């Protein structure tokens, strides 16, 4: 681990973290607010023996990623909300064919072309899956550049371990801001002739493996419903394990809190400030910060101090998308309110604090 911290722009730090994590293939298409990622990759990947391709579209990019992943490569892609929407067909294929991929959504306001300011309105898109069929994608939402760097660095391995796309959801704020980060060391990268042995499902040409009895096919087609059902059941047994192992969150000041915010990414930082403001005003507020959005950290809600807490507030840059998951997690144990801005608007901490007071007032 290098010890010195460097000041980096979020998007550039994301790209560097993916390279250090072992990603040597990047396929992308420019879109604000993440275009620094493909720019950085085009410049830096060739220096590490990697490949950057500027795809003709996000459709092209996700399918190049699928091909490279199916061939045993370690692949990273990034885009922003409408671009991620275009990639959903590919995500469904990757999940069914169990092809690993590290993907990043530096999200902005929507719907449609929306705007280019930060948003979290892709919550449903990334946690529910915008593609067809039964599948799941683990999603992690960092609230600082350092956390994003660490998640991306780990993400290359998680994708290979789970043989599934792993999504990092960072809003445009985290992509565009600068923070000091500690960059991890470079992970070793398998050579092309080592891939067939390491990734025992990847298409590498069977000459590497002794003969056509070891032929490999990467596919999602299953014409017989019995076979398709069996395959989907197998995928969901894997997702059930992932649900246990990939659940991540942080809690702050839950003991004795009157009100608890639930917030991820940039919004969690704002809520942390709002908690301090409320404390100054004599209101004790806590925070649940989901790091994994799928699996959603339901168990974090068991840590709430139900003797003191009167309400939980889902705080989002969207119109109450995470709210649904908060309601499911609480299962009626407490009233749930929404504090939101959308369309690229970001609430200030006094706004959030005021909303919390209003919610508490309304309960009286």
């Amino acid at each position, binding site marked *: 681990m290098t010890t010195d911290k460097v000041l980096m722009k979020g998007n550039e730090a994301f790209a560097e973290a993916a390279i250090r994590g072992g990603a040597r293939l990047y396929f992308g298409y420019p879109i604000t607010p993440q275009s620094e990622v493909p720019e950085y990759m085009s410049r830096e990947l060739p220096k590490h023996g990697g490949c950057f391709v500027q795809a003709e579209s996000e459709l092209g990019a996700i399918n190049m990623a699928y091909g490279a992943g199916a061939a045993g490569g370690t692949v990273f892609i990034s885009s922003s909300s409408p671009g991620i929407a275009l990639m959903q067909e590919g995500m469904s294929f990757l999940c069914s064919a169990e092809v690993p991929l590290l993907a990043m959504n530096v999200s902005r306001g929507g719907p449609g072309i929306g705007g280019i300011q930060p948003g979290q309105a892709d919550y449903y898109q990334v946690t529910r899956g915008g593609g067809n069929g039964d599948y799941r994608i683990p999603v992690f939402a960092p609230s600082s550049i350092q956390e994003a760097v660490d998640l991306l660095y780990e993400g290359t391995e998680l994708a290979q371990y789970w043989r599934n796309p792993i999504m990092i959801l960072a809003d445009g704020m985290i992509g565009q801001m600068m923070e000091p980060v500690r960059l991890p060391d470079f992970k070793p990268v398998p050579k092309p002739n080592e891939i067939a042995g390491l990734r025992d499902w990847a298409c590498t*040409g069977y000459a590497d493996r002794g003969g056509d009895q070891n032929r490999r096919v990467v596919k999602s087609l299953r014409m017989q419903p019995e076979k398709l059902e069996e395959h989907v059941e197998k995928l969901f047994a894997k997702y059930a394990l992932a649900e246990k192992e990939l659940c991540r969150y942080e809690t702050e000041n839950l003991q004795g809190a009157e009100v608890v915010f639930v917030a991820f990414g940039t919004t969690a930082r704002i809520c942390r400030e709002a908690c301090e403001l409320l404390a100054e005003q004599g209101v004790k507020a806590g925070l649940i910060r989901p790091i994994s959005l799928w699996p959603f950290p339901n168990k974090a809600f068991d840590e709430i101090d139900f003797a003191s807490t009167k309400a939980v507030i889902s705080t989002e840059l969207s119109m109450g998308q995470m709210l649904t998951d908060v309601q499911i997690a609480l299962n009626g144990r407490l009233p749930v309110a929404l504090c939101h801005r959308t369309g690229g608007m970001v609430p200030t901490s006094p706004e959030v604090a005021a909303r919390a007071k209003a919610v508490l007032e309304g309960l009286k």
Partner: protein
Amino acid sequence: MKPIFEYTKGMTEMPTHYCPGCTHGIAHRIIMEVLEEMGDLGNTIGVAPIGCSVMAHQYMNVDMCEAAHGRAPAVASGIRRVHPDKVVFTYQGDGDLASIGTGEIIHAAVRGEKFTTFFINNGIYGMTGGQMAPTTLIGQRSTTSQDGRSKELNGMPVKMSEMIATIDGAVYVERVALDSPAHIRQAKKAVRKAFELQKQGKGFTLIEFLSTCPTNWGMTPVKALEWVRNNVMAYYPLGVIKDAKEEEQA
């Protein structure tokens, strides 16, 4: 007894799902024969499309990756980046390549991707039940052009090979047919040429096969071959459309 023709080891023993007389089986076989003759079956990664040949990965006895509809050239581009020393090909029908996947095929050619595309042009959507393709001829009936394709409504059939030949990154483009033993021999030569150029790292290569769909054309397999000769070849003439090396020398 000395064998003078045996079924290639490049094909699996699985019976194909293709209709009787469908020329997909011929195209599959000659591609695999060439790879076997070149000693490259074990060094090849193929990409199967969506369409009638969606199950090509069950028949072609090489490592195979299935692609979403039209995206095979993007998938092959990704595979190529991981294995620059392997033989890579896509096998795509006219709906896949000439309609939904036009963006992917054009830009693969633009990048001069070092893989080979086999384009099966039978002028119809076979798998979904005989709908009009971008390559359906004027006047040809399909389930979505029941009075015959109209130029006013649908435009003229697209000539993908000619279009791709205009792109610098495409080094070899040839249109062949599978209607007769002589043309099949020529098709096999074209397949070999494309694979050789790919292995020399020259650039993108594409072989278009004029193919049949007896079932959806409503013809016997033998009549379908005659239809290719008498109608399809008039609009889609056979021959080398682009040979960058020959043009360079000329």
